[in-house]
């Protein structure tokens, strides 16, 4: 079984992102970049399936600028066997990325595609489902448990109010939620080994796809700020404020 794991280069989750001074976009100058945390969970799941003998190969793929090779090297250090970057200078929307990934899937023929449920930059939560639609593959989003056999995969999903378990025909698409696993850190020997692993770069133009943007970003602003309130000294004072000032408790 071959597993494809699409990963995205995003701003590190510790960075507090602000708008540019002209409000045309967010300011990403000189900020630390990383693998999207949900993509790390997806990769970890794929590597564990390989380590347990249920998968034979894990291929990482990214769509983005040349610098995304750094994140693919991280993926290789974490256990991916090889990687492909579809290089694009412009920022693509989820629909366009899904079209690019569809081409990669047609080329690689994986049995399973595992993605993060969302990227922490755009917070769109779209790419996995869109790729599933374009390929007519079954999907299980927000996975918290994955069980494989030769023709099916059983996935438990986090839904509002509880859990749902689905059975999907393979090939299938899975997107990962937080509790699926806890990703490992790359060891130094594995980081060294990753430098020798295969990393292909394909120019986006070679795929012959229309990836023009369908939406326009008109502006980016800070959200309305919330004023800090008052400090109270005791639970009694707090209850008094909630009852008589804020009037949110009777």
């Amino acid at each position, binding site marked *: 079984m071959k597993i494809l794991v699409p990963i995205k280069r995003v701003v590190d989750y510790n960075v507090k992102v*602000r*708008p540019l001074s002209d409000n045309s976009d*967010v300011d990403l100058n000189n900020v630390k970049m990383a693998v999207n945390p949900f993509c790390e969970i997806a990769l970890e799941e794929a590597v564990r399936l390989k380590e347990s003998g249920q998968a034979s190969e894990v291929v990482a793929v990214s769509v983005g600028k040349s610098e995304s090779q750094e994140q693919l090297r991280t993926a290789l250090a974490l256990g991916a066997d090889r990687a492909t970057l579809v290089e694009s200078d412009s920022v693509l929307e*989820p*629909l366009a990325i899904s079209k690019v990934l569809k081409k990669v899937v047609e080329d690689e023929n994986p049995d399973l595609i595992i993605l993060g*449920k*969302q990227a922490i*930059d755009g*917070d*769109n*939560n779209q*790419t*996995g*489902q*869109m*790729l*599933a*639609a374009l390929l007519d593959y*079954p*999907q299980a*989003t927000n996975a*918290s448990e994955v069980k494989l056999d030769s023709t099916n995969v*059983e996935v438990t*999903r986090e*839904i*509002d*109010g*509880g859990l*749902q*378990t*689905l*059975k*999907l*025909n393979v090939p*299938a698409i899975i997107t990962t*939620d*937080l*509790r699926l696993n806890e990703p490992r850190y790359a060891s130094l020997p594995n980081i060294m080994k990753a430098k020798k692993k295969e990393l292909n770069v394909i120019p986006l133009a070679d795929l012959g796809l229309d990836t023009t943007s*369908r*939406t326009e*970003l008109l*502006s*980016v*602003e*800070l*959200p309305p700020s*919330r004023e*800090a*309130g*008052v*400090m*109270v000294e*005791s*639970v*009694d004072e707090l*209850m008094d404020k*909630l009852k008589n000032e*804020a009037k*949110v*408790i009777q």
Partner: protein
Amino acid sequence: MSILVIAEHDNNNLKASTLNTVTAASQLGGDVSLLVAGCNIEGVINESQTIDGVSKIIKCDNEIYKNFIAEDLSALVMEIADQHTHILAPATTFGKNLMPRVAAKIDSQQVSDIISVEADDTYKRPIYAGSCIATVKSNDDIKVITVRSTAFDAAGMSNSGVQVEELQGTDSLGISSFVSEELAKSDRPELTSANIVISGGRGMQSGDNFHLLDSIADKLGAAVGASRAAVDAGFVPNDYQVGQTGKIVAPDLYIAVGISGAIQHLAGMKDSKVIVAINKDEDAPIFQVADYGLVADLFTALPELESSI
């Protein structure tokens, strides 16, 4: 303009998120149709006929849609997609699962999680965990949108006799099937619709200690939530999680206990009307957004709070 809203329900009752989504749809200007697909949904249809601002209900009562499998439900939406200019659903796990599948099928770039309607083609949405708000214009012929329910008021339910049109289902694609569902049973209100929410963070130290929040929640009629740190630490299940990667809440009163206030968490609760923070670390960032802050050891403050209600 002709707007289609996909109703979220459990085959018995409408979910509140559907009402918020109808309000967003009404703000676009145009006729609003509501697609109700499920199995044995008479009760949901009756409820739907009372929603203000809905001019037509499209009913599809078929065993195939009982569990709202995205593959089959998106195929059904496709049947009527081209009769509409906008297709909306709530940005809950239901809508997030379904809508991108619809969008890709009709070659439209979905706009996720909108918090305001600026024009029929322009919307505001949070990005980077709510650190910034983007204003986005869609140029697609059919706009596919998910709606953050806390950002829109619920539509009223004083309408009557809205016409119902029946839609034949499609055959099941048969590529995925429902196995089982485990829904948390609780007498408390749902997190996303509760008037009061009390949440615990890493400071709770263990899952057992959440009973301190439970007893306060029972007295206040509140829902219990948690920060991602508390979920990651295994104290409580993920459906407790409030934040960018969990649920977005905006109750009248939000009480954060032992929560430091990471951006990730603030993204999920900062639109609450009144925020209370109880934390023993006086430098915790949560105090910067709290209306009332109490620096205290939660293991003393919580029992005191409970006995004072």
